């Protein structure tokens, strides 16, 4: 980036602050930690795996772990035999919860599922842009994701993979459709995946979603659906 462009996008007391920092750092600070020794066998893709909670050895273990975490988080997690089966489940949900409109983005999985939803269920495609009020009025959203994370029961979405920023958070019920191959063991693996997929050009928005929205602000009592979605459904297809 040119100097001029840089200067115009940065303002304020930049030089003074950096000078104060440089001056302050001339004296070394004591360390109150021991540098942890890493077992030689671990690769750089999982720098912290040996200290975080275990992730399960096999893919089967990891799916089971994701399922257990989902239960704790009150995420509805369902392994579906096919995209068709996923669409069937979504149809049943829509009927049971009386959805009128579902918002979604174009994607391999989302488009395939959308094609199998009942014709009387309205859809709002966000790809070309959307009216905020219209999105707000939707009963649910359907998105793809970058990865699902076994250790924490999380879903990783980005602006590029999941229909932008608002789609997965504004409507009160967020449905994620993911392939089994998108399951990764932990956050380290997820960051590694993003680094491989978007080398030098990350999406402007990345989010790790861990369950439906929640708060404990009132007497530390758990309430779901504070501002984000009250319900989260994760459909796993082969």
């Amino acid at each position, binding site marked *: *980036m040119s100097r001029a462009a840089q200067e115009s*996008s*940065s*303002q*304020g*007391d*930049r030089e003074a*602050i*950096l000078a*104060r920092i*440089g*001056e*302050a*750092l001339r*004296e070394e600070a*004591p*360390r*109150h*930690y*021991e540098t*942890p020794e890493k077992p030689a066998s671990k690769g750089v893709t999982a*720098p*912290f795996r*040996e*200290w*975080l*909670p275990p992730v399960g050895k096999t893919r089967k273990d990891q799916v089971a772990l994701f399922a257990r975490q989902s239960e704790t988080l009150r995420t509805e997690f369902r392994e579906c035999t096919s995209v068709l089966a996923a669409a069937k489940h979504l149809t049943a949900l829509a009927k049971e919860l009386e959805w009128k409109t579902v918002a979604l983005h174009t994607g391999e999985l989302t488009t395939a599922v959308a094609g199998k939803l009942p014709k009387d269920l309205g859809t709002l495609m*966000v790809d070309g842009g959307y009216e*905020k009020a219209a999105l*707000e009025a939707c009963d649910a959203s359907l998105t793809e994701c970058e990865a699902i994370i076994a250790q*924490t029961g999380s879903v990783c979405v980005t*602006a*590029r993979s999941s229909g*932008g*920023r*608002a789609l997965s*958070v504004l409507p009160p019920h967020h449905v994620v459709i993911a392939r089994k191959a998108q399951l990764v063991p932990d*956050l*380290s693996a997820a*960051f590694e995946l993003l*680094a491989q997929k978007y080398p030098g050009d990350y*999406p*402007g*928005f*990345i*989010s*790790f979603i*861990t369950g439906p*929205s*929640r*708060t*404990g*602000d*009132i*007497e*530390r009592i758990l*309430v779901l659906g*504070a*501002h*984000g979605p009250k319900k989260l459904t994760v459909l796993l297809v082969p």
Partner: protein
Amino acid sequence: MSTAAQFQIDADRTTADEPRRAAVRKALGNYQIARGRTESAFASWPHARDAAAAIKYEGVNHLDRYLREFEEKFTARGGRVFWASNGAQARDYILRLARERGVKSIVKSKAMTSEEIHLNDALEKDGYQVVESDLGEFIQQLKHEAPYHFVFPCMHLKREEISALFQQELGSAKTDSPEELTMIARRALRRHYLDAGMGITGGNFIVAETGMISITENEGNARLATALPRIHVALVGIEKIVPRLADLALLLPMLATAGTGQQLTCYNSMYGGPRQPGDIDGPEEFHVVLLDNHRTRLLADAEQRDALHCIRCGACLNVCPIFKNIGGHAYGTTYQGPIGSVITPHFRGLQDWKHLSGASSLCGACTEACPVKIDIHHHLLQNRRNAVAEKKVWWERWLWAGFRQLMKRPWAYQIAVRLAPIGQVFHHLVLGTSLDPVRPWTKTRDFPEAAPQSFHDWWRDRKVVRK
């Protein structure tokens, strides 16, 4: 009135509020259980702490390098960075921005930095409607009260109080259900996300490697505040730096574990610029205001520099017996609890704020609880030493001078010990009166009886007998 005197008055009042203390104790007891459970799931929490401490040490001790890297990566994607030396500069920048862009209403997610620089007051004075979207902050805003705890802003309130507040301010129906109260707030805030021209957030981490701001939350309000308004402003302390994106794979679970006893907070989002070409939505502009505001002063104190490693999890507050008994408001300043007591003298003046470092038994529970191993309680001791080095308190100077003279003369010390039982007879005469030299003690506690014979004399007699 001095801040120290005000503190004593506030502590008198809040320590006498037994129901409030009990509610806080209960809430934090539940936190302890949740945290214990989540922490024990770690393969090695002690190693994780060391690794987290190492990451923050690296970031803070190369702060200039990493801030430059952040700026380069962030501005390359259209982000704007403003470097604010102090609160006034930060406020002016944000006010000017709002004015120039014709903003009318502003939605905020939790940002302690905005409390620190009194941003809301300045915005409201200039005519902007500012709405706090985090449920606890929303409640405190309606109450015209500062947050009680920087992670749990209204932990001191009971549901009846919140219902009464909502009835009065929002015209809602009375309810004793936390779920219904939350839904009332959700409905009230919905329209603000859609209408606001600007979303202001804080930031939990500044990621140097990829030029991102990482925000952690449970409710989703920050995601909404940064998805819909056309301008996003993040006001972040410069010390929030982490070197690499992958470092968050450790820090995010540790923040959640230590802060709330969760394995991971509900939404951990990384924002690396405004809406990018090809994006469906997102703010047109994203400004990061990097706030110094005396952080460089703390940085220069090498002994206490690790206080800047703080990830604002609140664990030290949660385990602190002082916090539990006096409550968050008694501190009288933005950052409460042990870490607040450490940093406030650096941010707001040592002589005015040294009393927070004095109001501690130095039990060390804070240091034990800290996920990034800040040497918190020793810093309180260092603040005390630094305050004395700057200016001695007259009666303490005499007290410790006398003490030193006595303790350097064993014969004088032994006489004093022998006189103790006799002195105690006189003490009984003035016990509890204004003449009682230890009245602060005897007001609420009995004073022990001096033994008829000291150990020293017993030993001496025993030696004589044995000879």
